[in-house]
Each structure stands twice: as C-alpha cells, then as structure tokens.
C-alpha cells in the first residue's frame, strides 16, 4: 500500500471540472512534482491533499488513513505557499514555533525544536527578526522550516520558488531537495517550471486540463513522452509536419527530404500527414553520418545563449532550431549558408495529434 494514495479523485466547481480521475500512489520519502500549465488542476489537487478543497468524488489516503473529509488542521501535512504566508506579527522563531505552540508542546521542547529548524535552514542568527526584515528567499526558508517543525508526514509545496529571482530560485531548490533527502519526508511539489520539476523530482506527474498526461521519472518524461502534450510541454522541441512514405519502416518526408523514424509507424498509412518532434539538443551540425538522418537547410538565425548557441535553420517551408554547446573554438556557420544537420533515428518522436506550432519557451 502506498503512503499517499489518491484514488479516482475528481473536483468540479459548478459546471467546470478542475481535476478528473486523478490516480496517484506516492511511496514514503518520495519527491513527486505536479507539472503543468496554469489552470491544469495541479494546485487544486495539492489543495485537496492539504484539505483546503474537498474532492467532489474519490478518496485520499495518507498512511492507510482516509483523510478525504478531514479538516486541514487535523491532517498530517505541512504546506509551503508561493507568497510565503509568514505571520507578519511574529518573529522568525515564533513563526517556526507556531505549530508546536498549537500542539501544546512544552516551552523547552518548542525552543529546542525551533533551534533545530533554524540550524537546518542556516538561519540561526535571524531568529529575532520579523518577516519583513528578511529577503524573499529567507522568508521562504522560514516558511519551509515552519511547515517542517510540526513533523508532518507529507510536505506540500505550492510553487514555492515562483516569486523569487532566478539565482535564488536555483539555490533554494537545491536546498529544498537536500533538506527533503535529509528528513526523508514524502513531498509533493507543484510547479509550472519544467526545469524545476526535472531537476528535483523522483517522479513527475504531467497534467493538462485537469487530467494526468503522464507519470514517470524525469528521464522517462523527457526522453519518452507518451502524449503530444508532454512532448511539447517538457523541454523545447521542433514540431515538424511530415508525410508518411512507408509506415512499416518508419520512412517519412519533411519538405521532400526523407528521414527515418526509429520505429515503424503503426496505424499510419502512406501519404498521411503526421507531426514529428525533434529535440534541439539531439541535432548536430557535424555528427556521425553513418545511418543517421540528415536534413539540408539554410541558416536563418544564430542566437547566443551563453552555454549553448541556438541555430535556426529553414527547410523549404519548415523552420527548426538546434542547440550547439558553446566553446571558444566553435566554428559557427554564417547566416544564409546552406548546412546539413544530422540526428539519430531515435531523436524523432511521432506526435500523433498534429501540432499547430512549435511549442516550448
């Protein structure tokens, strides 16, 4: 039996359905992210686990106890909010000790536990500051300590890093993961940032329009997306329209240039228009030529992004881009130059539903 178990959970507001048929089993100590665009139901699901929303139907269990209809203050969960939600009238130490005070712990016990939590977040010297005297990152660390102080069985984080600037975000997410590993606490992390989800999670639940699209490890989600949505939402990719030449061997044509898919296109017929995805990092200018796919096109733009260089190539009708790692000896093509790019067969993913435009950010 899983530690946290969501069973056929459904939530609808009036006519609109926010979450549909949500089934998830989370093991003890696991770090699971809910990833999806805004309005996909990820926060609603998290709030149902926290008890701020009641499921329309379905069941939520923690450690074999049904908590579906328990009020939030009787659930063994800790919550961290996007807006920190520290109590402005209390000092850092009192914020962290709030839950313990409610639980009627002794003064000494509270003091030692608060001390312990402050050490965990490396903020010992800030115990007597008010929240407004702290930076955003510090406030969120205090909020994390406050949620962990009561030793919840499940930690819920609702886009905890969205309000912070990029550098702090990366730093704090590593810290969150380190603390989570140290305490071995079961964690649900809601985010719309794929990089966060990919770098933090044991498993990712990709959601769209209230439904689970795919559940898997970051590796599986990124490399083997099961739906077109997952393929386009996670990572950046090129979506190219292609024509099936031979479904049984996986031979297709993009703007008249033939390429091979790694697998036969079962269910497709010759002449059918399909959409294939190409990850920009799997394409290279001078890769191994033997047996690999190649496409010829004209360089249209070159964007320098620091660690990588993104090159846009135009085929007859299609435009696609690929990434090249930056190094000082990199010889870049000229704009307008004709180039041949190569990529392995496995780099082509068949997106069953046609996509109107290349997605990504």
């Amino acid at each position, binding site marked *: 039996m899983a530690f946290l178990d969501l069973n056929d959970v459904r939530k609808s507001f009036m006519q609109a359905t926010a979450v549909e048929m949500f089934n998830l089993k989370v093991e003890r100590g696991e770090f699971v992210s809910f990833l999806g665009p805004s309005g996909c139901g990820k926060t609603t699901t998290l709030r149902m686990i926290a008890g701020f929303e009641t499921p329309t139907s379905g069941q939520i269990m923690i450690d074999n106890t049904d908590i579906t209809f328990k009020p939030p203050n009787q659930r063994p969960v800790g919550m961290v909010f996007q807006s920190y939600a520290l*109590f402005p*009238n209390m000092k850092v130490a009192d914020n962290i000790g709030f839950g313990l005070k409610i639980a009627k712990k002794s003064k000494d016990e509270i003091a030692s536990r608060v001390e312990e939590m402050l050490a965990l977040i490396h903020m010992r010297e800030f115990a007597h500051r008010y929240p407004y005297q702290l930076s955003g990152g510090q406030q969120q660390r205090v909020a994390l300590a406050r949620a962990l102080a009561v030793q919840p069985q499940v930690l819920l984080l609702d886009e905890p890093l969205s309000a912070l600037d990029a550098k702090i975000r990366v730093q704090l997410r590593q810290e969150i993961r380190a603390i989570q590993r140290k305490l071995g606490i079961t964690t649900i992390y809601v985010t719309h940032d794929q990089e966060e989800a990919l770098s933090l999670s044991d498993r990712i639940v990709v959601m769209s329009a209230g439904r689970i699209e795919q559940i898997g490890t970051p590796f599986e989600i990124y490399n083997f997306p099961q739906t077109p949505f997952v393929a386009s939402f996670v990572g950046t990719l090129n979506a190219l329209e292609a024509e099936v030449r031979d479904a049984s061997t996986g031979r297709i044509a993009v703007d008249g240039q033939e390429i091979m898919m790694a697998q036969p296109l079962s269910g497709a017929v010759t002449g059918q228009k399909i959409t294939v995805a190409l990850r920009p990092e799997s394409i290279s200018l001078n890769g191994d030529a033997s047996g690999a796919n190649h496409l010829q096109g004209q360089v249209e733009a070159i964007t320098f992004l620091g660690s990588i260089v993104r090159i846009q190539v135009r085929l007859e009708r299609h435009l696609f881009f690929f990434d090249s790692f930056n190094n000082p000896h990199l010889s870049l093509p000229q704009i307008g130059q004709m180039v041949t790019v190569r990529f392995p067969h496995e780099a082509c993913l068949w997106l069953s539903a046609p996509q109107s435009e290349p997605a990504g950010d």
Partner: protein
Amino acid sequence: MCVVPAIVLVFGMLRIYSRPPLALTESDTGTDFLLIAGYVTLSLPYMYRAVDTGLRAMDVRTLTEAAQSLGAGWPTILLRVIIPNLRVALLSGAFLTFTTVIGEFTFATFLARPAFGPYMGLLGQTRAYEPAALAIISLILTWASVGLIQVVGRGAPRQGQLAGAR
C-alpha cells in the same frame, strides 16, 4: 459624509423610543443606549474603512490556510493571526471614532445626555472665557489621538512583503 443627517436619525429615535412598547427614553440607561446606538451608526463607516484597509493589506486567505495547515482552529487563527495583524487598523478606526464622537453635538443634545459637545455649547452660552479654553482642550485631545495612532502604528510590523508575490 453621512447620508442621513444626525438630526433626522435622532428625531426618528425619539419618535419611536419615547413610547411603548420600547420606551427607552424613560430611563437614563435607556437613553445612554440610544446614544451609543446613534454613535455606532455615525462611526461605522470610519471603522469599516479602517478594518477593510487592514484586511486588504494582509493576505487573509493564505495566512488562514497557513495557520490551518499548522493545526490551528478558528479561535486561534482569529486571536493569534488575524487580530494581531489588524491591530493598527483597529486602533486607527477606534481613534477616528473617538474624534468624531467627542465633538458630536446633535445626538447628545436631543437625547439630553451630559456629553462633551453639549457641554461646550452650554459653556459658550453662559461663560465668557472658559469656552476658548475648552475649545483648545478639545483640539489638543483630537491631535493627541491622531498622534497616538502614529505612535502605536510605528511599533507594529510593516504590512505587506518586501519582495515577492501579490
């Protein structure tokens, strides 16, 4: 300022409460009660504004949820989270009420209560120099309450967040 003038309110009150079944004006306590009721009506908008501003300045919903997830019930949330954070708003509302009520004349005169307003009026009609002193005292009182709001407000934690959401 006030949609229904105080004079209209007080006449309405006198008409209704000076006869059975609710003859409140018969006794001092009853009249005091009417005076309080009138003052509540007068100062409600000020108090409402102050509390409303206070509530808007803090994220009540998220703070409540944070407290709930830490195990707090409704009484605790109100007493330890919401009201402490409304302290400045409540106090400024109270002082605003005080300053409006202390100078109030109409209700107190018509209900014949010995309040500050009628007292000033009475002195003004019967004495030569004392009214000036009284006017200065009332001015000082008003300024003192405004000053007190500032002093009390300074000690309280600043509202809102330095960096971040909302």
